[in-house]
């Protein structure tokens, strides 16, 4: 039986709408469930004290600091390397075997389970470079982990900049570097920022790679060489060892809020930077 176009249109619309609504419902119910279970546990004390009695009491301040510092190290290391590589691939070289190898490696690295990065970080940063379980080891491991994401998204973003912008800039006496700084980066910024935000999200949420490289110490980290426990790891340990489910939910809710804030903040920054041109 052939459907008439109107009927197939109605069916297609229904299917597409229901898919979207189903996904939204699923995501929202997870978030709402965690927030409703978690937010009652978020008290002033929870935010400002370090955990005591294995996390049964006290707060999670040291875990918040740990998460932020590990993420910060990872982002600060991976962003220049990743964006730099993307610019090398798009602007400073022609397609060749080398670019293909770089791209293939980045793609392969993107698909590796994070625990493998954890193992690599443990062997290389923790043991071989003698950095020990520390914020630095964790941050560097996460940097390696998010590098492929940043390279790929930045490369895509730079490629969407119309080629004529480059020509205009060159024709006005611009060098390659000036063109990159003044035209390409501002124009590709939203895409590059998306890659970095995705990377930050993965850092904040990561457990396997950091538990092996930053450790799971509960005390307040005092330097880059201190071991620490990130919020995600704390959540994992609290839930897995049945220490305190309420506090696990509290930590999870705070994680979600943190990621939300990072996203909003990054968007505001990008918009402010872009406002002049569009």
């Amino acid at each position: 039986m052939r459907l008439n176009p109107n009927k197939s249109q109605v069916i297609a619309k229904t299917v597409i709408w229901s898919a979207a609504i189903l996904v939204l419902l699923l995501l929202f119910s997870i978030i709402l469930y965690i927030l409703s279970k978690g937010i009652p546990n978020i008290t002033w004390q929870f935010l400002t004290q370090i955990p005591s009695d294995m996390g049964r009491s006290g707060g999670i301040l040291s875990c918040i600091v740990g998460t932020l510092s590990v993420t910060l190290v990872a982002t600060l290391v991976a962003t220049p390397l990743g964006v730099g590589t993307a610019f090398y691939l798009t602007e400073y070289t022609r397609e060749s075997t080398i670019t293909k190898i770089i791209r293939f490696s980045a793609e392969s690295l993107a698909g590796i389970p994070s625990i493998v990065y954890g193992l690599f970080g443990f062997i290389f940063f923790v043991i071989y470079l003698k950095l020990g379980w520390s914020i630095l080891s964790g941050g560097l491991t996460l940097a390696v982990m998010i590098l492929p994401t940043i390279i790929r998204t930045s490369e895509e973003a730079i490629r969407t900049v119309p080629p004529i912008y480059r020509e205009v800039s060159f024709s006005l006496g611009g060098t390659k570097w000036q063109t990159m700084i003044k035209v390409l980066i501002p124009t590709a910024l939203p895409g590059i920022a998306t890659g970095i935000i995705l990377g930050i999200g993965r850092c904040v949420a990561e457990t396997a790679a950091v538990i092996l490289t930053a450790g799971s110490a509960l005390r307040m980290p005092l330097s880059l060489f201190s071991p620490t426990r990130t919020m995600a790891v704390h959540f994992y340990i609290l839930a897995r060892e049945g220490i305190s489910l309420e506090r696990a939910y509290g930590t999870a809710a705070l994680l979600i809020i943190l990621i939300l804030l990072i996203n909003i903040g990054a968007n505001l920054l990008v918009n402010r930077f872009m406002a002049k041109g569009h």
Partner: protein
Amino acid sequence: METTTGQSKISIRNLHFYYNKNEVIKALNLEVRANEILAVFGPANSGTTTLLRTLNRMSDLAAKVRIEGEIFLDGKNIHSPEISITELRRKVGMVFEVPTPLPMSIFDNIAYGPRLSGIKNKAALEEIVEKSLQMAVLWDEVKDRLHSSGMRLSGGQQQRLCIARILALQPEVILLDRPCSGLDPVSTSKIEESLRTLKEEFTIIIVPHNVQQAGRVADRVAFLLMGDLIEEGLAADVFANPKEKRTSDYITGRFG
């Protein structure tokens, strides 16, 4: 019309341009005189755009390009190692076929070139922007919204913005590659009008989007066909009495 007394600004001697293995321009000899408007016209793929892009070495950007022969700007070979390519491009400005404001404000678009060359003083930049916009006959239309995006202007205004952007660099030669091909007749005539004033100070080479435009704006014309220079001369002469049959066929619309 007697405007051919100017001295030679650009000399092109025996220029061959190869793209891959195609010879896009064949043994071209052409003099461009100071303060004239030269129209280089011909059907698609005749090498007109390529010629323009060779003059400010934008053609260097493409891969698999080989250039033979010499091009002199004020007697200096533009391919010689002591010529700075950025300096050359500032002297020989280019307007592209599609109006292309950069994604920034009108002011920043015009100040882009001067800033690259190191001018940071705000008052100096403001003066350059105003002067350039006035020369491109755009100032009155945009003076109240210099800090809004250049991309919100109409097509004709955008193209005049592109002209102003080049004037801000105080160039010597202006290359225009079919600058009016997407524009309405009113915008086109505004641009042609500004070109007639600009030639007092600059040397202009235009690839017109049709023969009529060559007739309207050019002092001299050069007709290119498949990379060969078929005929050149005063616009009035060439259009009234073309020496070559191929030229007369083209301008009367028998082909192309």
